[in-house]
């Protein structure tokens, strides 16, 4: 019972049985409009701004709001938290000329990246003119909507973290309606000076992670959160960049219903039929996860391309027919590659960046994005279908038996053991599958997709299902259920591919269908709620030992930086070892701000493990410098953090020149991570270098000419580059040698969506760990 009050109150065993039942269950979660909470918060914060802070100006909030009255607005601000940034513009209509005054209580910080911006006006304004004057820097595509006298600016995707945004507008008063009879048409009066508001977004939720920090064998279940109420998300899957593609009932609210001229393209293609579902892109960078945009109206069974940027999904077409289409993540239909009779029951399977396998009335087919491709003749039913990461091998549960098909040769498919099902390919190209037997479930693993071996079986009385490899290919996650148990009795288990280290992943026994995110920072799963519905959840994973060391090093960096921000010389010096102190005293960088300026804020841009024994991290920090209360410039330091005894100390520092904060995009973070093609070859191991910008960047300016990696001899390293506009993220895939140092350069050829270039070239070292 574990509650002394109840133990004292209920001694009768019959009562205790009821009490135990009540204590071990919870009433079903009440239905909740996902936008209500955010909407109410926004209203409260607006009211709180008005009532809790002393004001010199007259009250202006002229009305009270009821949720039902403003239901349309709730939909309009559905992106998540709605922040009212405290801009109040007074248009005093008499006497002439009209005046504009602004009350900005302070620059807001820690603004969530999914928060719409609401600007409330106290009187009528020329709405069209106001919308046209709004400028957001760094450049951000937004949707602008008027809700009464409030201008709601909804970012079309999450804002960049760690970034100070400036919103500038020139409000102009709306002319009063002309009096009856002949009159002179009054012109709107534009405010004499622009209204400027600034806010700073939250720090990045997860510190940049570098290899080899993610090791799935050491991770633990972290904090979980419900993705959506049961019945509001039918299916969900990860994109390569860690967003979610979810299938929701048709007509769900979300942002981006209408886009401004500067916004990214709105969903296009033929009008969707009246399908029962839509496919949405959701972000997990905020909690709770928030819908970003409708990607496939009327779509279902979405699958993200392994190279990112595209999604394949089914849409019902004519009567009893469905089409397989390809959309980009902005919602633009790229092509329709197949039409099948009947209603599909599974997503298509990407083989590589331009080939897709799907099932057409029991027959396996393969389509190319640019035309049909002959497929091996296989009759399949409702069984498993999975492609190796190289796209060469396809595991198929056919009607007769399960096989592995080599798509690059004409050899006969290789038969797998009887009852092989639940195929899962690791990022290294290893195939795992299950075979249900009378005594339990066998786990089989085929290293490289060949020579499969039975590695272990489920414990007596247990059955296994839902195999999923960890992103590093070092362990498998599966659902384990007692024979004969109800569907809610499933739990998640981690196991090594050799069958060892069977470890419970989550303590509670009601999870199934686990799916790692590509970066290993989240696990998606389903869970039955008390009402019998099945809802999608995501859980964070707590750090491995190396992550813990990284966090310890970052904690010391934070103490060091906070002391510098405070101007506390003694505390800052306490974080330096002798070599570090010498470096600062020798002029490698300035420990404290110079007179007349102040270190205003900082954040880590890169964290890289550069050595062990002792552990050493190279931490790149960006430090913003303010003068007269306004941030004017920034510089970066590369801090070498060395474990000395029980704590990390700054052992060395290198500093960049000071860069002025001005228009144009800047790089906010750089991460290095192993890829799914991570096997080492002569030219090194395959790595991804992820460069994140603060602004919406023009995709056509993100090229091998504008973002380059060079080796220690200055020789360029060949790289494949992809750009994800939703996350302002450029991803370079390239071969880098462990133990080597490279140089990243982001040139001024990168421009934002308004054509404004990077102010200065950005350079950073890349250290590749062993």
């Amino acid at each position, binding site marked *: 019972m574990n509650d002394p*009050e109840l133990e004292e109150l209920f001694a009768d065993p019959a009562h205790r049985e*009821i009490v135990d*039942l009540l204590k*071990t*269950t919870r*009433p079903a979660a009440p239905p909740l409009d996902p936008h209500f909470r955010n909407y109410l918060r926004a209203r*409260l914060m607006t009211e709180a701004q008005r*009532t809790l802070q002393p004001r010199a100006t007259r009250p202006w909030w002229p009305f009270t709001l009821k949720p039902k009255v403003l239901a349309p607005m709730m939909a309009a601000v559905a992106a998540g938290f709605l922040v009212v940034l405290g801009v109040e513009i007074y248009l005093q209509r008499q006497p002439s000329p009209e005046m504009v005054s602004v009350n900005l209580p302070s620059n807001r910080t820690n603004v969530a990246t999914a928060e719409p911006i609401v600007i409330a006006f106290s009187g009528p304004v020329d709405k069209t003119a106001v919308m046209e004057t709004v400028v957001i820097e760094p450049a951000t595509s937004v949707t602008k909507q008027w809700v009464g006298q409030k201008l709601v600016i909804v970012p079309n995707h999450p804002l960049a973290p760690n970034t100070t945004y400036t919103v500038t507008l020139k409000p102009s008063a709306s002319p009063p309606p002309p009096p009856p009879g002949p009159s002179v048409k009054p012109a709107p009066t534009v405010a004499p000076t622009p209204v400027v508001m600034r806010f700073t977004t939250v720090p990045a939720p997860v510190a940049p992670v570098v290899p080899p920090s993610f090791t799935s064998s050491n991770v633990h279940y972290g904090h979980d959160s419900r993705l959506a109420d049961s019945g509001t998300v039918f299916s969900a899957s990860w994109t390569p960049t860690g967003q979610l593609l979810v299938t929701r009932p048709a007509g769900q609210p979300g942002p981006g219903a209408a886009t401004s001229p500067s916004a990214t393209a709105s969903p296009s293609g033929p009008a969707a039929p009246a399908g029962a579902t839509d496919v949405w892109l959701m972000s997990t960078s905020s909690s709770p996860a928030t819908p970003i945009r409708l990607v496939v109206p009327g779509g279902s069974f979405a699958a993200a391309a392994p190279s990112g940027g595209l999604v394949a999904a089914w849409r019902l077409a004519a009567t009893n027919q469905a089409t397989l289409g390809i959309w980009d993540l902005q919602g633009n239909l790229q092509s329709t590659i197949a039409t099948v009779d009947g209603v599909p029951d599974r997503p298509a399977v990407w083989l590589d960046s331009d080939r897709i396998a799907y099932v057409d009335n029991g027959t396996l087919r393969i389509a190319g994005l640019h035309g049909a491709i002959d497929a091996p003749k296989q009759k399949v039913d409702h069984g498993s279908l999975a492609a190796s990461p190289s796209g060469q091998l396809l595991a198929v549960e056919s009607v007769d038996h399960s096989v592995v098909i080599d798509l690059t040769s004409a050899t006969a498919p290789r038969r797998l053991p009887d009852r092989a099902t639940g195929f899962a390919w690791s990022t290294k190209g290893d195939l795992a599958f299950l075979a249900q037997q009378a005594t339990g479930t066998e786990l089989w693993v085929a290293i490289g997709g060949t020579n499969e071996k039975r590695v272990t079986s489920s414990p007596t009385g247990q059955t296994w299902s839902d195999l999923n490899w960890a992103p590093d290919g070092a362990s498998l996650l599966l659902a384990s259920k007692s024979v004969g148990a109800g569907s809610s009795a499933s739990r998640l288990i981690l196991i090594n591919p050799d069958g060892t280290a069977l470890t419970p992943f989550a303590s509670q026994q009601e999870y199934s269908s686990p799916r790692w995110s590509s970066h290993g920072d989240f696990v998606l799963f389903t869970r039955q709620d008390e*009402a019998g519905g099945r809802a999608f959840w995501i859980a964070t994973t707590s750090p491995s030992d190396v992550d813990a060391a990284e966090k310890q090093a970052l904690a010391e960096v934070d103490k060091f930086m906070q002391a510098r921000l405070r101007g506390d010389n003694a505390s800052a010096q306490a974080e330096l070892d002798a070599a570090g102190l010498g470096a600062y005293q020798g002029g490698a960088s300035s420990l404290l701000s110079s007179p007349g300026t102040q270190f205003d804020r900082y954040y880590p841009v890169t964290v890289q493990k550069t050595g062990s024994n002792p552990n050493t991290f190279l931490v790149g920090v960006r430090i913003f410098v303010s003068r007269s209360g306004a941030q004017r410039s920034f510089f970066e330091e590369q801090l070498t953090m060395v474990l000395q005894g029980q704590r990390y100390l700054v052992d060395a520092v290198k500093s960049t020149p000071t860069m002025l904060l001005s228009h144009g995009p800047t790089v906010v973070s750089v991460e290095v991570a192993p890829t799914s093609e991570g096997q080492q070859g002569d030219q090194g191991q395959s790595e991804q270098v992820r460069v994140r910008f603060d602004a919406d960047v023009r995709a056509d300016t993100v090229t091998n000419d504008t973002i380059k990696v060079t080796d220690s001899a200055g020789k360029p390293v060949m790289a494949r580059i992809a750009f994800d506009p939703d996350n302002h993220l450029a991803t370079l895939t390239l071969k880098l040698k462990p133990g080597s140092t490279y140089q990243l350069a982001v040139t001024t050829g990168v421009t934002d969506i308004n054509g404004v270039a990077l102010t200065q070239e950005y350079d950073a070292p890349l250290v590749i760990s062993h």
Partner: protein
Amino acid sequence: MPDGFEERELVERAKEDPDAFGALYDRYFPQIYRFAYSRVRDQSLAEDVTSEVFFKALRNIKRYTYSGHPFSSWLYQITLNAVADHYRGQHGEVELEEGADLPSGGPSVVDEVVRRDRSRRVWSAIDQLPRQQRAAMVLKFAEDRKIEEIALILGKSSGAVKLLLHRGVERLRRELPQLEAELT
């Protein structure tokens, strides 16, 4: 459960600082909405009640004095008052009186209950309890409040709350087997 000192500090800041009030809202919205819904069983009404609770809290937070009880107790009190205000305006709203029996398991109730598992049934049965018993049961078993805190929220003595809980559990013990038998 938030640390008492930290919560007290946050509440004090919320008297001046909108961000601190926002933090209180973030912390307590789920349980207040859940509690409101448990009382009115209607999503729209629960939204109205929750809105009213937090706006009242905002309007009156400067008068709130820390008494050693969690801040949530105050919010629960406001919730109960808001629910009571709502019902006062609803002519024809029927509240079961103390001592009234659970529904006898007529066809509509049985149809409803048949679709639910055992835990669902027991919480359904709690919904049918008299108003004060229901509030006490929800606060104790769904919200994990201490009896002393429930007493503060309901404006009763601790002994009275214990009696409400005992009666509630006893009624479930008495009535649940009957309901379950009717289902089999």
